[in-house]
């Protein structure tokens, strides 16, 4: 199936993602930041779909927007943030922090521009990956070459679960 209106969807989705990013770092209310982050995550899922990665897009929506952000919202509700909304939101070093971050971003873009790979990066016609077999091929990788990494990831999740429960308990 041929992609349609790629330019329009790319600019729309990346504009939404960047708008969500700006809203996350500037809102006073933490719930507003969380909702803006959900907007960014959904826009990024759309971008993954444009990049022929339907499985990663699905995992992003289910796990990230539907799991991690719900966890964030629960914790925001548990922690009483009324008082912190009236305080000063940005710390004293915000100028040098912003300048350093922007310089880092320019450095990243320069790395790509000055590299030898640039002709490949600006090539227009990239191969369209097959979408139907994307999940199967990722499964072949996950349970084949990267089986060890997969098991380590599940061990990491077990450890994180125990750690989170121990941290949040009233008495250990």
């Amino acid at each position, binding site marked *: 199936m041929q992609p349609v209106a*790629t*330019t329009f969807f790319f600019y729309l989705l*990346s504009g939404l*993602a*960047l708008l969500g*990013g*700006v809203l*996350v*770092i500037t809102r006073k209310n*933490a719930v507003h*930041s969380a909702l803006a*982050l959900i907007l*960014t995550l959904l826009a990024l899922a759309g*971008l*993954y779909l444009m*990049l*022929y*990665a339907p499985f*990663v897009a699905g*995992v*992003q929506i289910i796990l*990230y927007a539907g799991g*991690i952000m719900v*966890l*964030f919202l629960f*914790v925001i509700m*548990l*922690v*009483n*943030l009324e*008082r*912190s909304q009236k*305080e000063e*939101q940005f*710390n004293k070093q*915000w100028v040098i*922090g*912003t300048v*350093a*971050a922007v310089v*880092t*971003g320019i450095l990243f*873009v320069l790395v790509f521009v000055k590299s030898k790979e640039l002709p*490949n*990066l*600006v090539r227009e016609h*990239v191969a369209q990956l097959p979408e139907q077999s*994307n999940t199967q*091929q*990722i499964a072949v*990788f996950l349970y084949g070459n990267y089986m060890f990494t997969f098991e380590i*990831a599940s061990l990491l*999740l077990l*450890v*994180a679960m125990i*750690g*989170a*429960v121990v*941290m*949040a308990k009233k008495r250990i």
Partner: protein
Amino acid sequence: MAPITTFHYLVVAAALFVLGVIGVLTRRNVVIVLMSIELILNAVNLNLVAFSRLWGLQGQVFSIFVITDAAAEAAVGLGILIAFFRNKETVNVDEVDLLKW
């Protein structure tokens, strides 16, 4: 308009990364700092998936592991936040100074 190349996606990912770093460095609310860290991880994911279209599916497999990692780290970070809030009743990063001399 110019056709959309991989470089466009990389620039968007770099911009998201910069926004996340600004959030980590400038905000005083710990919850928003944690959310900015998630923004950084998502920028990295976009970078990986953009390159995986050129170089093979390993990028997408890596990004699945990054999402798993982000979930684990968010859970532990929020647990620490809850434990700290129980002691000090504040979510200000400037007040996390128990180890200061």
